[in-house]
């Protein structure tokens, strides 16, 4: 299956990438996907304390199982306001 991954802020800037499509196996969790993304993009989360993940515009836990066509967002520390 495929998921769309969105990058924002400092992560987007460092990767030079705002969006990509990633193939992953059925049953992949958020934790599994983030491991894949870290392999694809060494230093993905350098410069930030941590990132949160949102799936289809909801913050989710790392145990969340992904579905085909999910929109996964990598959310560095927010600073709106």
């Amino acid at each position: 299956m495929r998921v769309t991954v969105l990058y924002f802020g400092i992560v987007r800037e460092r990767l030079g990438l705002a969006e990509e499509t990633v193939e992953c196996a059925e049953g992949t969790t958020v934790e599994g996907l983030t491991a894949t993304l870290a392999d694809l993009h060494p230093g993905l989360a350098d410069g930030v304390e941590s990132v949160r993940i949102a799936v289809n515009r909801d913050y989710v836990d790392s145990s969340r199982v992904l579905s085909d066509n999910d929109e996964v967002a990598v959310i560095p520390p927010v600073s709106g306001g």
Partner: protein
Amino acid sequence: MFEIVDSRICLDDLVEAVGHDESGAIATFTGTTRNTNNGRNVERLEYEAYADMAVTEFGRIAERVREKWDVRGVAIVHRTGVVPIGETSVAIAVSAPHRREAIEACHYAIDELKVVAPIWKKEYFEGGEVWIGSLADCCHEHDGESSA
């Protein structure tokens, strides 16, 4: 009224949006670009948002506000792109029958927005730029000492 916009925010638009004949009080909060931050001379801020999710989160903040206080209208608008010194990056308006509710709810809404809204600001200051909330920003906050 929950919006991400890329041009100037007019506070009166939000106030009008939350106006209600049963409301006797409207509290607003406006965030503007300051000319200094952590000792840096700020030239401008540039905001980026995950717009669809941000608007969804604004609506959820409003739902939580309604669970906690007796309010009538809630409006939240955030600007993206360059926001020059003195201009508004975010505006919130809450109407309620009574003032305490309106003011407390508005305070809660801006506090929540800063924690949950997927929005990021990059500060362009004299001599550099930094993503606010990143380690580089945190280090700078403490005169070069790293903060966890």
